[in-house]
């Protein structure tokens, strides 16, 4: 089947190892690296293709091969022939199911390159996995079954590759052996794909007719496709340009990971160069401060470097001492990146728990971690039709465009220009799960014109004037638990003790500040966010703030806690069992809710998440309101 005039690269390598190991090592030492992903539908033959690449490049040892042969007979899907897919389907659970359920990474070498393959599953519900695999790839191999042509899945995979910014697309029309290597089948599929690709902004791709199972046009030109004059898959993979080469030509950026300070005479800034290059004598600017300096040395264990480029991990020393720490970005002095705190971005939702509009998440971008909130999405994208759909939130595997705001300015670039300074993840503050991946488009102008006003009178002097330590007593509990009653008693008692206080009550705030909000989950989150911000202003003014809100969600209470200086936030859990609160039913609300006349009522059809570790817990079944107030005041003033 192989063309007799082309040499088999695998064979040459093997001879070289046996006859001249030093020459082989020299060759291996100078190899470059290409990372690529393979995507296709369930039966397009991805695993078989990867198994074939590993097999042809001799990455399979004899003991593995023996196991493979026996497995092929037991559970294989190829009759008595070797089922290459069994080589790459990893975890026991999925080996039995016969599908790949996570991203797996494989490795092989040819004479010119080392390859890392991300094996991505094709199921609809695994957008998450494909985006993960694509995020580190230079190239994507999109597999099409020659018998089936361009499918919905093909479109979805192509769209995701485009979204993540993969420029090199290979359209591998697989299983050509099953259509008798018919050129018209191949040409028809390429024509279909060309029309679709242009519509989503893929302007070039390389199409090739292959058979992973039989080995056609994988490492050697196939005699079965004399009508095809393009490269084999491996030829193409060996010569295509890698991302890091392109990154080196952009302006210099190094996100600082760690400040290296072994003694008073050495101060270096360590990080991985994201783009561009740097050498001693270069003028640099540190963002967000904007301070400038000159690089004196590029330090490594192997000696100082004359120049370092994108992709290298280095340590830089400066001519003068300027403030620079983890999260800062060192950049070319004359071409710095932007700094902003409001953005538009594309989000890919990765978690079973959907996006909570308005809730604060951790946002990690390069080495910067800030708190960020996401607005209601402008739209989501239907990945099968590319249509824009109006949505209120983003569920698992959804892709949407939304605005987001951060609590501190971020040094950034558009994702299209710089993956490192434009790609980010969102992390749930309670579970610490990575819930979303995002790609920044641009900053929103309004943020740039609103600056913090530096105040001459400090919060300490305001508190000092009142002769008290400011604090927030944050009451939480079911409707009818006794929050407002106890909060009132606490305020009266503090007032009598000459303390300056202010009580924010749920119902009262909803008549004014929050009159535009209802009781949906998103509105409840916004309600608490606003009250949290007001409480923050009031503690800054030196007051003791008492709030009485149901505040059912743990995440929002934690969000408010993070707004208030440490040691000044007291979560007061008014612990009343639902049955007791419902029996009291002071405002008749439980009756209404039970009758179905009141929607989203906490405890009935909306959850209450009790605090895990409140500063103060009051059991109202054993404590009177007066006793409770005394306990709370003691806890607040006890150690002050």
């Amino acid at each position, binding site marked *: 089947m192989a063309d007799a005039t082309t040499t088999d690269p695998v064979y040459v390598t093997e001879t070289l190892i046996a006859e001249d190991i030093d020459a082989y090592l020299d060759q291996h030492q100078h190899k*470059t690296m290409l990372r690529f992903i393979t995507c296709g539908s369930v039966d397009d033959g991805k695993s078989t293709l990867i198994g074939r690449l590993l097999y042809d490049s001799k990455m399979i040892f004899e003991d593995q091969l023996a196991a493979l042969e026996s497995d092929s007979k037991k559970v294989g899907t190829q009759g008595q022939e070797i089922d290459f897919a069994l080589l790459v389907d990893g975890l026991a659970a999925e080996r039995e199911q016969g599908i790949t359920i996570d991203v797996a990474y494989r490795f092989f070498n040819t004479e010119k*390159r080392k390859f890392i393959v991300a094996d991505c599953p094709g199921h609809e519900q695994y957008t998450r996995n494909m985006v993960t695999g694509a995020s580190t790839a230079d190239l994507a191999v999109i597999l099409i079954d020659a018998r089936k042509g361009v499918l919905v899945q093909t479109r979805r995979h192509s769209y995701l590759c485009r979204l993540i910014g993969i420029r090199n697309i290979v359209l591998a029309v697989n299983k050509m052996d099953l259509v008798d290597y018919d050129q018209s089948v191949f040409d028809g599929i390429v024509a279909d794909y060309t029309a679709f690709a242009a519509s989503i902004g893929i302007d070039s791709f390389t199409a090739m007719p292959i058979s992973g199972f039989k080995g056609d046009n994988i490492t050697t030109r196939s005699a079965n496709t004399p009508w095809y004059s393009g490269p084999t898959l491996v030829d193409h993979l060996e010569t295509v340009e890698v991302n890091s080469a392109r990154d080196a030509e952009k302006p210099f950026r190094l996100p600082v990971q*760690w400040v290296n300070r072994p003694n008073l005479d050495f101060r270096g800034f360590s990080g991985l160069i994201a783009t561009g290059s740097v050498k001693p004598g270069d003028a640099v600017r540190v963002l967000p401060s904007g301070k400038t300096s000159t690089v004196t040395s590029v330090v490594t264990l192997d000696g100082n470097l004359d120049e370092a480029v994108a992709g290298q991990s280095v340590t830089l020393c400066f001519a003068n001492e300027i403030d620079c720490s983890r999260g800062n970005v060192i950049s070319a002095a004359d071409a710095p990146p932007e700094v902003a705190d409001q953005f538009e971005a594309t989000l890919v939702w990765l978690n079973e728990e959907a996006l909570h509009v308005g809730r604060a998440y951790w946002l990690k971008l390069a080495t910067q971690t800030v708190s960020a909130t996401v607005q209601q999405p402008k739209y989501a994208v239907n990945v099968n039709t590319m249509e824009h759909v109006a949505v209120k939130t983003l569920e698992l595997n959804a892709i949407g465009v939304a605005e987001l705001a951060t609590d501190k300015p971020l040094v950034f670039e558009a994702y299209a220009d710089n993956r490192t300074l434009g790609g980010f993840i969102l*992390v749930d503050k309670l579970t610490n799960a990575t819930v979303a991946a995002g790609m920044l488009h641009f900053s929103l102008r309004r943020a740039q014109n609103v600056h913090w006003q530096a105040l001459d009178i400090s919060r300490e002097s305001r508190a000092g004037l009142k002769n008290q330590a400011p604090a927030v007593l944050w009451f939480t509990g079911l409707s009818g638990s006794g929050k407002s009653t106890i909060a009132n008693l606490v305020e009266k008692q503090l007032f009598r003790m000459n303390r300056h206080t202010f009580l924010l009550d749920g119902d009262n705030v909803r008549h004014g500040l929050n009159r535009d909000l209802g009781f949906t989950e998103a509105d409840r989150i916004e309600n608490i966010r606003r009250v949290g911000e007001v409480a923050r202003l009031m503690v800054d003014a030196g007051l003791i703030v008492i709030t009485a809100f149901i505040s059912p969600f743990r995440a929002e209470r934690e969000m408010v806690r993070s707004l208030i200086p440490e040691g000044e936030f007291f979560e007061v859990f008014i612990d009343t069992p639902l049955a007791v609160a419902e029996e009291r039913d002071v405002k008749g609300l439980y009756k209404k809710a039970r009758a179905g006349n009141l929607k989203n009522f906490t405890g009935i059809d909306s959850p209450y998440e009790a605090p895990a570790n409140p500063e103060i817990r009051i059991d109202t079944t054993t404590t009177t309101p007066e006793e409770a107030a005394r306990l709370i005041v003691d806890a607040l003033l006890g150690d002050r």
Partner: protein
Amino acid sequence: MIKTLTHLERLEAEAIHIMREVVAEAEYPVMLYSVGKDSAVMLHLARKAFYPSPPPFPLLHVDTTWKFQEMYKLRDQMARESGMELLVYQNAEAAERGINPFDHGPLHTDMWKTEGLKQALDKYGFDAAFGGARRDEEKSRAKERIFSFRTASHGWDPKNQRPELWNLYNARKNKGESIRVFPISNWTELDVWQYIHLNNVPIVPLYFADERPTVERDGMLLMVDDDRFPLAPGEVPVMRSIRFRTLGCYPLTGAVESTAKTLPAIIQETLLTTTSERQGRAIDKDAGGAGMEVKKQQGYF
């Protein structure tokens, strides 16, 4: 013309980046040090990552008391040279019960290594531990994350691992949870050898062929490293030119007959050989095809 990085330069930069992220974000990191060739590379990378400072974390050796003598020698030497603190942990219960590879089979690995590692991590309260595992070693490792999360009881749940995008690692965790971090995940065995070769990384001499006293057990060639090795009546160890492809407890580690005395010769032999790396160890075969996967869920590295 701008320099294009070689694959080894990119792998090195990636590993250094990962180590620096952990040091910046974890509270109390540690590097697991098994004295094998992967550990040797890890230690070298750590020294590069933080130079001119010494790596800002200790080395932890979970000892089974059954390692080769030459391993103990190199371990102590490397700790001195790197300026790092060396912590050696031995499971007291295993010592007390006299658990050994000759009489106790799989229990030996379970008590000394799996339990020993858990106990050591709990004792010192480490929240991040660097390991030298690679994705190419074994099928179930091909899907392992670079930051692998463990519950407070050190369990590994394959369904509950975090997606890793770009080179952004989420190192956040709740109290008691910990992360195992694998900076050389994307290296192959050949990469490791070549890196050792190019950087003159010190490794245990047992990787090089030499005349050593050996006996055969169940088709494996074992080295008689000390007088704890039970010989059959009348059995005399035979001197053979052997070397090791992986190093563990000496009674559990099979040698190969070889004359490779230089790194290029070792690499040549590795590339031309027909059995995969872990084949020399008994551990993968314990539970049929899924041996390593089951071990991992129990908390083995």
